[in-house]
């Protein structure tokens, strides 16, 4: 799966949790979920659970802790897909 496709899929997953549409539109590799999107840690858990469902992967605690921005999340998703 291409990075762009993944980012698009990720954007769709994140949308319900983002208050500010402009921030969401500007989402890129470096976007930090907590700092840039004002997502709290509880919603971040829900995003990770939605990612698990969407990509049919299982994310462990160590991987979850890395998923703080778009780039790192894509890395984790790719790695988990490869491990399947």
């Amino acid at each position, binding site marked *: 799966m291409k990075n762009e496709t993944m980012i698009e899929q990720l954007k769709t997953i994140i949308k319900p949790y983002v208050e500010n549409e402009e921030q969401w539109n500007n989402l890129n590799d470096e976007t930090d979920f907590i700092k840039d999107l004002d997502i709290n840690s509880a919603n971040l858990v829900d995003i*990770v659970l939605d990612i698990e469902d969407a990509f049919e992967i299982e994310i462990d*605690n160590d991987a979850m802790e890395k998923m703080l921005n778009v780039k790192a999340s894509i890395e984790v998703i790719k790695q988990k897909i490869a491990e399947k």
Partner: protein
Amino acid sequence: MTSEEIIAQLPYGDDFCFVDELTHLSLDKIEGNYRFKETEYFYKSHFKNNPITPGVILTECMAQIGLVCFGIYLMAEDTTALRIVMTSTDIEFIKPVYPKEQVKVKAKKMYYRFHKLKCEVKMYNEKDEIVAKGILAGMLIK
């Protein structure tokens, strides 16, 4: 862990503790109850000459049993530095609760992952009528 051991670990002062006992404890669900005293401080003003338990207090009671007591139970190994922060509430109120009424709270775990506990919580009165229901979530932080 027993009901008494969990209640002893609650971080609330006397006038803000809304748990009397826990009657069921398991990994999937928790049940407990609380009897609202006639002397609770909020009855004096909510409302003037017409005491009714505020919805926020019913929510607090549901959260103390369904998130905090449940969280302490689920983290049983080590709760010394545990902090539980409520992160979302979505509660409907169906019937009023008056002074001296006992309420029963039943919480079912939806999931507990990455330190987040999310539960479906229902509150019943002594006639077993549902008085409030909804979904609560919190983070268990060490």
